[in-house]
């Protein structure tokens, strides 16, 4: 089970840790220096970050190591949104937003990262793989030759983030109409609903009486 943060006891958690630790060591060894960073959260999950050149090789290696189940492929835009949450009164002066890019687990050096997850069936060990996408190039190699299911995921990532996938057989829009302009999941693409119409929650809402424990505490 997930330990509460104040009672982490590494000696009793060691057996599960060891599984993941040995596993990630095996993966890193097999990948021959392509791994730039890695992280194991005990009893939780594994992360590695690889270089963009070795993206396809990583996929093939992982497949041969037994990670035959393709879970998903997507991207993360690490820049905080310049629009905030859109919950501010539009008549107020715009708030200062910190748009410094700060990556998460297993580090990173670019604003966009492609994130994929593959799993070993039966043991349910999964590994999250991140790769930096250079802002100037905005493209990495396609995984559709490695895992057939990546085809659709890459199409969706392409239309949502604008990341190209070299070697993809048919990189067209998944959800959006063919001529849609812009890449919606980028943080600098605003959530149009909050721009077109002011958020109704701006008006202070009375909390429900007697419902203190579940009050969201949201007041604009």
């Amino acid at each position, binding site marked *: 089970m997930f330990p509460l943060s104040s009672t982490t006891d590494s000696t009793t958690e060691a057996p599960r840790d060891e599984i993941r630790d040995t596993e990630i060591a095996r993966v890193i060894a097999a990948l021959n220096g392509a791994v730039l960073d890695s992280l194991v959260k005990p009893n939780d999950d594994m992360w590695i970050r690889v270089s963009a050149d070795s993206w396809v090789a990583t996929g093939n290696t992982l497949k041969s190591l037994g990670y035959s189940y393709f879970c998903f492929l997507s991207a*993360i835009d690490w820049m905080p949104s310049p629009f905030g949450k859109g919950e501010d009164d539009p008549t107020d002066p715009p708030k200062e937003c910190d748009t410094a890019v700060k990556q*998460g687990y297993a580090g990173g050096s670019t604003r966009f990262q492609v994130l994929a997850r593959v799993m070993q069936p039966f043991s349910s060990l999964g590994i*999250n793989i991140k790769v930096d996408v250079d802002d100037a190039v905005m493209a990495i190699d396609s995984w559709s030759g490695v895992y057939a299911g990546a085809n659709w995921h890459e199409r969706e990532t392409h239309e949502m983030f604008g990341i190209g996938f070299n070697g993809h057989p048919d990189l067209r829009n998944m959800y959006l109409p063919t001529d849609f302009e812009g890449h919606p999941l980028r943080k600098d693409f605003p959530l149009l609903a909050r721009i*077109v119409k002011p958020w109704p929650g701006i008006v202070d809402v009375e909390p429900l009486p007697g419902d203190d424990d*579940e009050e*969201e505490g949201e007041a604009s």
Partner: protein
Amino acid sequence: MSLLGDRQQLAYIASQAADARVNVELETEGMTLNIGPQHPATHGTLRIIARLDGEQVIWAEPSAGYMHRGYEKLTEVRTYPQVTALVNRIDWLGSFANEVPFILAAEKLMGVEAPSRAQHIRTILFELSRIANVSLFLGDLGVQLGAVTPVFFAFRDREYVLNLIEAATGGRFHPNFDRIGGLKEDLPAGFIDETRNVMKKLRTFCDQIEDLLFGNEIFQSRTRGIGVIPKDVALQYGMSGANLRASGVDWDLRRDQSLPMAWNKVDWKVITHPDGDSFARCWVRLQEVRESTRIVDQLLDTIPAGPVMAKVPKIIKVPEGEAWVSTENPLGEMGYYVVSQGDMGPFRVKIRSASFNNISIVPWLLKGVYVPDIITILASLYFILGDIDR
């Protein structure tokens, strides 16, 4: 306001018109048939463009996105409880099951664990959602194949389950009951006995469906050997849930993962089928409903006493980190990759929905099948549009 300008709007309209023109052209080498987006066979607005040669399919391509609601963008401006309410609507037939992985991911990041009574009740409601979802599948299976009677039994018996969910949570289709740290409230009085009765009724329903539909020779000849998916292809495409187990892969995330839920406290079997055809997928789901009723019965016998909510602060700010939790939802493996930067809402949520992967195999699978088999295969793969399109 000036970002979605007139030009963009005109481009959108032009592309819709261009896509519509595809429908009307009659090409000489084979006929291009548009199944959907409005069609009784697709569970929602799925469009399949099929190039036919007589009655055989040369290629078929699903065109999703008619129901895209932009969930991942919406989650970026909402707090965690608001996202919970939003996420109910992805797989709307078994909707409690959508909330659970997200809440578990948030709890993982916060380092809290729900009390064991809450875990138990979560599991019960999860299995009830599975039963509600899959019993509709069983009824709908008949309609797709032409048997119009079982669907009424399915809806009638599903009503009992929905009444149970409504009694506990207040909502039949969108319970919005899970909270970080536990549940909104405790179970109502009389829930346990009523649930036991309903489980008996559902077992009767499963027997009826097995007699009426699965034993029928016509059903067997329509589904056996149709749409065979081999094991390795299924894994490569990321198929999950009953579709994967019907191809012979003995993998169930309830048993093979350790999550703070109560599945490992009760005794149940994982059901697989070696064939990988449409019949196998339907059969596995039928047996899973039966197993679910047994799980619920055992869980009802062993609910521990205690609180249903852990001590969490009033205003929840989840610490920085990333977490991935996936569960064995009625449709397959549904998971959330939650990225938090210490705020009241998530920074990025990647929703991994089961039907997206399940349907991605359709272009590969539908080469060379007959038109009626398209319907059979889609029915047996069982998707929900909200799950594909998010």
